[in-house]
Each structure stands twice: as C-alpha cells, then as structure tokens.
C-alpha cells in the first residue's frame, strides 16, 4: 500500500496572539524544502513574511445561500416563522421580505416551504484559495470572504491541497499555521495529524487556554508539544504552564524569550531566524527539539 511518508506539523495556540505565525515563518526557513499551509483563513498573516508569488487561484464555493425574488414574494411570513437563524427580515409596509446573507446558513428550509416558490438557492462563493511559491517552498493559503461561513471547510481544503502537493512533488514535511481557538477551524487543522505544537505565553490567559487546547489534542489522540513564548515575562508562570503540559501528556519543545527584535523582523518582512535577533537561537533549539526531518538529514 503506497502509504504517505509526508510528515505534518500543525502549530496552534488556543489563545490568539502568542506567536504562531512568527514561529511558522522561522520553521519554514529552517526546514528542508517544506510545503507551507496557512490555515488561519480568517486572519491569514504568514504571507506578510513569506511574500508568496501566487501561481493558482481557485474559487471556494461551499454551501448555498437563500435569496428571495422580491417580485414574487407574497409576504406571507412563512420563511420568517421557519428560519432558525434570524436571517429573514420582513420588509416595510407592502414590501418583500429579504434574507440577510451574513446570517443565512444555507439550510434550505425557507426555499422548500415558500408557498410561492420565490426563493433561489445558488451555491455560495465564500472565498478563494491559492497555491503560491515562496523562498522556503510552495505555500497553500486562502482568503475567506467577508463574514463568510464554512471556515472549517476552507481549512480542510488548504490542508488537503498542501498534502497533495507534498505527495506529488516529494516534499517530506507540511507545516501548518493553525487558527486560534478550539472550534471547527482548529479541529479541521488538527484531525489526523502526526504532530501538534502549541505556542503559548506565560500568562493566566495562556495557562487557561492551554488547558483547553490540550484537552482537544488529547481528545483526538494527537502527539503534542508545547513551547512558551516570551517566557521571561513571568518565569513562575512559565514553570506552572510546563508542569501543566507534562501532566497532560504533552512534551516541552523549549522556551522562547521576550524579544523586541521579533517585531523588527516582522516590519522587515523577515523570519526571526533570518535576523540576528537574540530569540533566533531559542527558536532553533525548539525546531531541533521537535526532531522532524531527521531521516532526510541523515540521508543527505
């Protein structure tokens, strides 16, 4: 059976703003010819460091949206009564009802039960995904439409396209920049992966959110490592967090110090490891500790 030998590293955080994307960019530089996947589809930032040249664009269509044809609306209000998502808005006196596309979840109930058959149900264009080239390797990324639904589905698409590219072109590793939180986009980034890395920070919020995200990775049985970013902001909290991680069955990949040079690198459009920033040494240690692509390195 031609099983896949492609490794995958998914970088998540629970709490937002801990430094996932900065770290992903540095790992992209340190890795040996990886495929990058930016799965933080509603606030994608990896491209600001990796400067991709877009080679392919694809529409992302998912689900449907209901649209009332005003001339045929008989203003009976049946759609309003049935809609569970508060998406139907009555018109003014003698005016047709309308559907708020932001609230509509594309369930089709109003379409089915409109007595006048006055509701169209086209497929929804929710955004687009792109395949690009960067100085580190190919990158799959996406843009979700404003206020669009189905971010989890777009994440799945980005991830599976990255895997396909890796298999077709013999890349050994896919690095995924994941979204914050624990909901559907994160679940779509994580399921079936071989290694997760949680980037956290030494704060009560970081600790609280780490506990929840570790429960999630345990729920899916995913081997998980953590690293505390800006660790010297609160060394006592760093130790508490590392103990929490170990008790949860996660491993410690390292610590990264608080470093103003991280923002300077970002402003220059460089990954931290492409500069002389003091924290670059910490990042290299974390990468080494993850032990990915060891086999490839031994071969070459």
């Amino acid at each position, binding site marked *: *059976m*031609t*099983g*896949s030998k492609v490794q995958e590293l998914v970088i998540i955080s629970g709490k937002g703003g801990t430094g996932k994307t900065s770290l992903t960019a540095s790992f992209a530089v340190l890795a040996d010819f990886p495929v990058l996947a930016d799965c933080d589809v509603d606030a994608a930032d990896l491209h600001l460091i990796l400067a991709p040249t877009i080679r392919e664009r694809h529409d992302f269509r*998912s689900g449907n949206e209901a649209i009332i044809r005003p001339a045929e609306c008989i203003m009976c209000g049946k759609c309003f009564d049935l809609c569970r998502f508060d998406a139907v808005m009555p018109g003014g006196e003698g005016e047709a009802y309308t559907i708020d596309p932001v609230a509509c979840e594309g369930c089709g109930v109003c379409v089915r039960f409109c007595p006048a058959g006055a509701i169209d149900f086209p497929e929804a264009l929710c955004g687009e995904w792109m395949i690009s080239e960067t100085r580190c390797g190919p990158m799959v990324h996406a843009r979700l439409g404003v206020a669009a639904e*189905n971010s*989890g*589905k*777009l994440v*799945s*698409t980005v991830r*599976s396209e990255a895997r396909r590219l890796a298999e077709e072109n013999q890349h050994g590793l896919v690095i995924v920049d994941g979204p914050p939180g624990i909901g*559907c986009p994160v*679940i*779509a980034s994580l*399921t*079936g992966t071989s290694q997760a890395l949680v980037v956290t920070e030494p704060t009560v919020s970081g600790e609280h959110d780490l506990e929840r995200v570790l429960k999630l990775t345990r729920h*899916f*049985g995913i081997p998980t490592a953590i690293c505390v970013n800006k660790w010297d902001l609160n060394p006592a909290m760093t130790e508490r967090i590392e103990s929490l991680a170990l008790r949860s069955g996660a491993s410690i990949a390292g610590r990264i110090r608080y470093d103003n040079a991280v923002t300077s690198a970002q402003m220059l459009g460089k990954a931290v490891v492409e500069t002389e920033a003091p924290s670059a040494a910490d990042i290299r240690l974390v990468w080494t500790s993850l032990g990915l692509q060891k086999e490839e390195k031994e071969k070459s």
Partner: protein
Amino acid sequence: MKVAFTTSGKTLDAPMDPRFGRAAGYIIYDMDNETFETVDNQQVLNSAHGAGIQAAEAIVRLGANCVVTGNCGPNAHRALSSAGIQIYKTQAETVAEALEAFRAGALTPLNSANVEGHWS
C-alpha cells in the same frame, strides 16, 4: 457480488489508495462477471465536508456489497455498516493483489473505524 477497491488509478495494476473517504477513486469489481468499472471520487474530494459519509453514499448507490481499503474513519464506517456493507482492511500495493487476497479469503474485516475522522 460487487467489491469496491479504493484506488488512485483506473486499471487492476493501479495502486491501492489507503484512504476511504478521500480516495481518488474506486474500482468496483463484479465478482460474478469478472468485469469492473472505475469511478472517480472528485466530487466528494471537492466538497471538503462530510467526505466519509458522502463516499459511503456513493458506494451504496453503485451497488457494492463490500469495500476493501486501508483506513476507514468513524463516520464512513458507521454509514457503511448501517447500509450492510462489509469493510475489509488490506495493505496490498495494487488492486490486483488486494483482489487476489479477497478471493483467497485472506483479508481482515474492519469491525470499527481504524483512524480518526478528518472532520471534513
């Protein structure tokens, strides 16, 4: 009796695809007539949602009685089982090898999902 093999190709020499829900396609082998048809799974792959369930629906529509694959996630397994379709696990490299193993009764039945779903 019809047996569905998950594959990325169109002939019996084609490699087996280890995934069920996200397989590139299927070869449906008719054991009584010794003929087969190839089916593309592109629509399921494009949908990026509920792939396991949709793939199971496709297999049912095609009239297959068994599925031979490498990995099957929980949603697909539940759906196939409810439709009375037996799932077998194989590590054979090609469809032809898997078919021989199936004929010889050498394949292990998969009585529950053996991989996590992808929530897609």
